[in-house]
């Protein structure tokens, strides 16, 4: 399977204005980068899910999605505060400096597409956090112990809904399959190991995602089998989020999320 050629962001294209947070960790650049990747994943997915607030298909699902969102924003707060000034990193950084994977920034679409994205991401996140509990980094190990319980519930709920929509009515099955199709091409990025990640794996801090790719594919396969949805075919994978090469969707998300602190930089509450 050929992967897309990497599109390198020109070094002068940082997008950083005078309000922007530093995007290189002075003390330990690789660890800073790894914290940003995990923190940005949680922040961006949390923000995406919060867009459902007040728009859920039923009241109970609305509350449920808001809960998932809050769990993720809580995780992002811990991770970005460990990397530096969490608020500044969240609200004073532009698209090119975000390090989240492409999957989490994908639009909500309908409820099925949101559930597909959540199943694909949190199944991966859960396996990663299980391994990060053994990290040699005290912060990451303690973080993983806390977050792994939250994410276990996310994964469970996403699987429950996938099965009910996939094995539901003709319309829900169609929407579930389309939601999976949309998100499937962003899965390979979750298992990409670049130089930074390899360094962190070698230091015993990061978990190697390649070690659980097979387990991941088999777990997703089992959920989809129970949901009576075909596993989508693998197309050319789309990579680049970890290097700041994002889809157009992230800029719109940040425009909403960062509007207030960028317009009123001294605002407090």
């Amino acid at each position, binding site marked *: 399977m050929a992967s897309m050629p990497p599109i390198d962001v020109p070094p002068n294209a940082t997008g950083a204005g005078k309000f922007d947070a530093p995007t290189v960790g002075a003390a330990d650049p690789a660890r800073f980068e790894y914290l940003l990747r995990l923190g940005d994943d949680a922040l961006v997915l949390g923000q995406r899910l919060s867009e459902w607030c007040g728009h859920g*298909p*039923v*009241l*109970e*699902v609305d*509350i*449920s999605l808001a*809960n998932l969102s809050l769990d993720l924003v809580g995780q992002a707060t811990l991770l970005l505060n460990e990397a530096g000034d969490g608020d500044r990193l969240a609200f004073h950084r532009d698209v090119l400096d975000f390090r989240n994977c492409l999957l989490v920034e994908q639009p909500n679409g309908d409820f099925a597409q949101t559930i597909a994205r959540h199943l694909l991401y949190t199944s991966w996140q859960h396996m990663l956090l299980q391994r990060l509990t053994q990290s040699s980094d005290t912060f990451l190990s303690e973080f993983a112990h806390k977050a792994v319980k939250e994410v276990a519930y996310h994964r469970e*709920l996403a699987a*429950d*809904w996938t099965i*009910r929509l996939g094995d539901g009515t003709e319309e829900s099955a169609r929407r579930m399959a389309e939601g999976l199709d949309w998100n499937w091409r962003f899965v390979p990025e979750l298992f990409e190991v670049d130089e930074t990640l390899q360094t962190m794996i070698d230091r015993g801090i990061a978990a190697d995602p390649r070690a659980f790719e097979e387990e991941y594919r088999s777990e997703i396969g089992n959920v989809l089998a129970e949901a009576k949805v075909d596993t989508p075919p693998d197309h050319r994978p789309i990579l680049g989020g970890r290097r700041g090469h994002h889809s157009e969707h992230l800029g719109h998300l940040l425009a909403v999320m960062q509007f207030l602190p960028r317009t009123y930089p001294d605002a407090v509450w």
Partner: protein
Amino acid sequence: MSSDWPLWEVFVRSKGGLSHRHVGSVHAPDAELALAHARDTYTRRMEGVSLWVVRSTDIVASDPEQAGELFEPAESKIYRHPTFYDIPDEVKHI
């Protein structure tokens, strides 16, 4: 859509040793998601350690018309109340 989903009554045990108490209801397509909805709606602020959900239609309720014959006779039987005992301060949850 919500009207298609049955109603479930939610009971929460706030901590070990206490009984489950009725706290409200949720709509859900089946028992498993009723538990998930109950968890997300009623235990967000550490309200509980255990949840029960039961289909609202499975609850057998007394008839309000019969309130007189069912409950009023108890009003005149003060000797059934344990108010003539001193309860030690150490005894909780009474």
